[in-house]
């Protein structure tokens, strides 16, 4: 007879992360914790640095758009004043305990987008909260009061607002990628056209982020999915768009990981070139 320690009816284990699976289902959650954890630590560290985010003509995506720069302080690897939307006067209301890092103005937006993303929700509910850690694996916190996304997780329903902001970042980062081909500014500012490894790094970055952002489930819903009759017999734009977005949406997981890795790598690249540790191969000499 089944007791508390013996298998329950049907022989299914009930204990912590119990499962009869014989494959290595735990690799996926472990990798997720490691990669997301490492990215979170690196991004926070990089945001707190407030320096070496610029190596003409490359601007790190962690710092773009530049809202303010602090031109009073001689920031090593900082961007020139004309790059910042609101100039070089660091706001006086800035709390003293925080470094003057332009990343703080913007990182919350892509952060909120990824945090509320339907794909990342799957990944971290499984990996961080074990709910469940794998399929046909007993949830690690097996509470009877499980409420899904109905109680305090209701805020996840605002994902579309995070998406609106994330969409705005794509042309901005696209512009950064364009600028990365002009050393010293655009042609009318006396810039010189060329190409460097950094130009490719920034261009790949915006392509991957675009693939991720435009494959968003909320985007797919709003551009057409919300309608039952997307064509109603006509070749409509919304059906065409919905089909394209669907292609990206089916690859949302891949774009989520590749773009995450690449945006981090882009910051690393700009940082190391700015510090003179890496040399950017380019046509400017």
């Amino acid at each position, binding site marked *: 007879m089944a007791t508390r320690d013996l298998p329950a009816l049907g022989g299914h284990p009930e204990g912590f992360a119990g499962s*009869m699976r*014989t494959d290595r289902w735990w690799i996926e959650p472990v990798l997720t914790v490691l990669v997301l954890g490492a990215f979170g630590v690196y991004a926070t560290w990089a945001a707190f640095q407030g320096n070496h985010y610029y190596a003409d003509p490359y601007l790190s995506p962690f710092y773009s758009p530049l809202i303010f720069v602090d031109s009073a302080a001689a920031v090593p690897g900082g961007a020139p004043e004309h790059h910042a939307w609101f100039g070089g006067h660091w706001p006086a209301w800035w709390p003293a305990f925080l470094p003057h890092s332009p990343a703080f103005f913007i990182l919350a937006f892509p952060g909120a987008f990824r945090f509320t993303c339907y794909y990342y929700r799957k990944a971290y509910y499984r990996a961080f909260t074990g709910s469940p850690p794998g*399929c046909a694996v007993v949830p690690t916190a097996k509470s009877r009061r499980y*409420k899904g996304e109905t109680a305090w997780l*209701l805020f996840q329903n605002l994902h579309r607002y995070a998406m609106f902001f994330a969409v705005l970042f794509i042309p901005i980062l696209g512009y950064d990628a364009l600028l990365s081909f002009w050393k010293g500014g655009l042609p009318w500012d006396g810039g010189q056209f060329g190409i460097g490894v950094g130009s490719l790094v920034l261009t790949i970055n915006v392509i991957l982020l675009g693939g991720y952002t435009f494959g968003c489930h909320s985007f797919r*819903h709003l551009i057409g999915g919300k309608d*039952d009759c997307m064509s109603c017999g006509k070749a409509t734009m919304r059906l065409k768009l919905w089909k394209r977005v669907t292609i990206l949406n089916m690859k*949302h997981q891949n774009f989520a990981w590749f773009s995450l890795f690449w945006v981090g790598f882009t910051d690393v690249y700009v940082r190391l070139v700015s510090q003179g540790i890496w040399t950017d191969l380019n046509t400017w000499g």
Partner: protein
Amino acid sequence: MSEQRTFRVWRGDKDGGEFATYETKVDPGMVVLDVIHRIQAEQANDLAVRWNCKAGKCGSCSMEINGKPRLSCMTRMNVFAPGETITLQPVKTFPLIRDLVTDVSWNYEQNQRVRPFKPKPRGADGKMRMYQEDVDRVQEFRKCIECYLCQNVCHVLRDRDGKAAFTGPRFLLRLASLEMHPLDDDDRIPEIKDEFGSGMCNITKCCTDVCPEHIKITDNAIIPLKERVVDRYYDPLKKLFRVFTGSK
């Protein structure tokens, strides 16, 4: 070449049970259900197993094979490592009748809760029209064979005692096929949220992972429903807009 393999099969009923071990010959090309039939014929005539089509189309032979929810008629023996012991269990989420057979009638009760298709009024010419590209989306959902593997694997039903609050992926799929249908005239959003419990799903996608028909249950049915629920209940700007325009 046939080989001797070891199977552990759950034998028991609602009062309890245990794993019984069977050694049996496995021929090339066999699926797990073939092996069960061989064990039944040669060693355990009273072994209970439910099956019908042996073609992956009736959805009867769902069980857990080495801990994974699968159709036994579609699980070929060559997916296992040579010499690996294979463990067969009934699905966990539904009450055990005997051995590998469970009582899945809770699912039929869920099905009855879904209001049937409510056609829109006919057009001026007396015809009803829909366009292929508009129904392509819901046609995917009609591939469902009602094997209930998704219902079995969903942690809300399987491990959380969530049956009172959540209808499960299979029925959100059915609701999506009606809700997104260009000719369905019913407003199903309030009950999708409140009675069928779309918010209980935390989109962890195990239903999609096990579906033998490869239906993208979470991406194509559940998340779009959740987004429609957001439109109605949680989008602050849409709510404001409705207050000012007086629309639904």
